[in-house]
């Protein structure tokens, strides 16, 4: 089963093959890349400055100057939605990095070494499991000050033990697999086994979790903003926008909440699809790793 024999002749064959194997992956990736593009190009493609207030054009319906209408402070909803993707990624990506940075080594060590480290991790997980996450996030953000940074750090920290547990589960499975046992039997030192045999496979298995966690990060930051903590006005963050707009839905100014709501839903959907797709692609059945 060599890769060379399967080299495609046409440049589109690989992506098309991928699409056939997992359409969810492709759709999810497409959505995420779309919003990423919005985030990166925001200053260029947004028609207005997202925090510029047009004092005389408050709550304008979509159409005319404001394609998505204007909100309660006279700011353009379209520009705010586009810039909002910066904040979505600005929260999801660093939170994800923190999560991996802490969770990966923790999970590896706990799964491989076992012992007191494993116990400590499990106990911490117990505490976190029983602690209502939203409340914890709320309390911490309220306590450490209303800033984006504190929110990102909190979300990343909260996610780490969950990620660590996934990694740990992967490591445990791998540890009892044939090829690892063989590697140990042959005489590899434990650090090498961990580094060469377990780590890459564990990462593969845990990678599918990453987009899900990022989706959760985006959702929880929106919920926190809705309650009123974490984001300072007039930051164009989708959750804060929905908070302001939610009030207007009943009196007919539907656009203030709908567009950021759609954007939020679509991006979270994209992350979830991406994660699902990755799980499909990295399924053990197709990995061909000694099973």
């Amino acid at each position: 089963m060599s890769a060379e024999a399967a080299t495609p002749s046409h440049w589109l064959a690989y992506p098309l093959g991928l699409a056939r194997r997992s359409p969810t992956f492709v759709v999810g990736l497409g959505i995420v890349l779309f919003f990423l593009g919005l985030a990166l190009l925001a200053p260029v493609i947004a028609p207005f400055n997202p925090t510029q207030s047009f004092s005389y054009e408050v709550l304008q319906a979509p159409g005319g100057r404001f394609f998505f209408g204007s909100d309660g402070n006279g700011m353009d909803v379209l520009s705010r939605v586009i810039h909002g993707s910066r904040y979505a990624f600005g929260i999801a990506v660093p939170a994800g990095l923190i999560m991996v940075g802490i969770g990966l080594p923790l999970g590896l060590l706990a799964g491989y070494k076992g012992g007191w480290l494993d116990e400590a991790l499990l106990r911490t997980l117990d505490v976190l499991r029983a602690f209502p996450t939203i409340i914890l996030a709320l309390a911490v953000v309220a306590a450490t000050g209303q800033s984006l940074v504190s929110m990102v750090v909190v979300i990343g920290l909260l996610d780490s033990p969950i990620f660590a547990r996934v990694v740990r589960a992967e490591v445990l499975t791998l540890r009892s697999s044939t090829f690892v046992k063989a590697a140990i039997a042959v005489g590899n030192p434990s650090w090498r086994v961990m580094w060469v045999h377990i780590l890459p496979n564990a990462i593969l298995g845990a990678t599918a979790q990453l987009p899900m966690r990022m989706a959760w990060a985006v959702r929880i930051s929106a919920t926190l903003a809705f309650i009123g903590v974490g984001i300072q006005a007039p930051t164009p963050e989708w959750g804060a926008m929905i908070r302001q707009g939610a009030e207007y839905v009943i009196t007919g100014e539907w656009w203030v909440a709908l567009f950021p709501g759609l954007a939020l839903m679509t991006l979270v959907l994209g992350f979830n699809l991406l994660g699902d797709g990755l799980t499909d692609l990295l399924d053990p059945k197709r990995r061909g790793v000694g099973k």
Partner: protein
Amino acid sequence: MIKSFSKTIMLVIGMWATLAVPVVAQEKTLVMAMSATPKGFDPDIWVPGQIEAAVNLYEGLTRYGTRTGGNGKPEVDPSKIEPHLAESWTVSPDGKTYLFKLKKGVRSPFGNELTSQDIVWTYEKSAVQKRTGQFMRTAARIDKVEAISKYEVRYTLSDANRIFLGALTLHLPAIFDSVEAKKHATPEDPYATKWLALNTAGFGPYHLQTLQGGQQAVFVVNPNYAFKKPYFTRMVWREVPSPATRVALIRTGQVQYAEQIPFQQLTALRADNSVKVESVPGFGGATVRMNPRYPPFDKVKVRQAVAYATDYAAIGEAVFLGQGTRSRSMLNSPIAGAVSAYKYETDYNKAKQLLSEAGYPNGVDVTLEYSTNWWWEEPLVLQMQASMAKAGIRVTPKRIPSTEMLARRTINVWTVPFLTHLTSSFVPDPSYNMFLTAHCRGSSNVNANCDAAMDKLIDASVVERDQKRWLALLEQAQNLQADSATFVETFLPGTHEVFAACMKGYVWKPHNRLVWKDLTCAS
């Protein structure tokens, strides 16, 4: 023939009587969608919802008269003070001693009659609790309260002042049915404060029937109320925390009153035929305050620059949707003696000039802190940020929890350099308002407004009895305040109450809360 005829008449009358009696005794209920159930009813201890309930449960010795306003509707006349629970009074020539004759036959829902003992008991209780009731007493310079006979009470003031009679219109210090209250006193709690926190015993039009925390409170009419019987005999106060839900409820007729509706939704509500929006300018002003103890606000030129760099027109449009009245001074009509002292208009060049004269040629960075006490705070702050930038004042908005704001802006704490605040009070008396807001010892002085000259003027106006001299003092004080520029006066947000379309009889009272007894709904 005659016999059967008279029998028929009797029958008809009898039928009519049996039908009519239940109609007359039928209960009229008003359902209110409120943001939270009241957490307590003792007017001396403020908790959320307390004032909104207490103004309907407890009444004062005096009340404000009414007049016909510009739009033909009745409105409060702050210059007329009429008897209420007191039927008359006399005042000594030096203005320091008042003798009140109480109205006879005023009974509480428990059946006890109002006597001078109740009045004395109230002041004793406030003195022990040392909270809001005590503050009102000090502000009105009440020295002694004595029972002279069963229906006579004598007040001795430390100084003759203009606030006193107006203060007596208030619901605090509340006049309790002390006979009933004393039944719930204990040795550790001789004034039954624990019982009075969660129960009511007064001579007002309504009375608490049940309270289910977090769900609803039900108030019923006081069957012994000494004045005109209210139309609504039962008030159901329902907790509906989400403002959007409250709007949905009033628009569908499920409730007949919805509190704290976001201002920007009022436009849509005004257009809705099933809803009636009553708007009154009131006299509370939305202001931005600067604390002169923190640079750069220690320099008067910087403060004036801020006043010039405010885009008043934009604020009026964006925040108040063209419906607010511009505030012209720290006192506004209908308060007597209000003049147009605040002469600042938008002028960015002047602002920049003043800034560089004060030593900030390249502008300055400041943080504007606000909370969620009033709906206009955040939109106003954002407009300030936008317009200040044009004069080089770079504003960073910062929202802080309301409890933190309350703590930091307290007298003698004063750790907020730049903040939003509503200038208002319960009593439409100019001296009282200035005392609260701009005097160094005033409890609504949130920005360390401590100017010796100002304090002198205010103190003098409180005790000045000559009308002309008094008005001159008021004008002086307002001009002094405007020149010091520690307040940026923007607009009067007004009071907007949202009712079902049938509701009539709403009259705005200076305590700015809904009075239930005036309302009728002929549906």
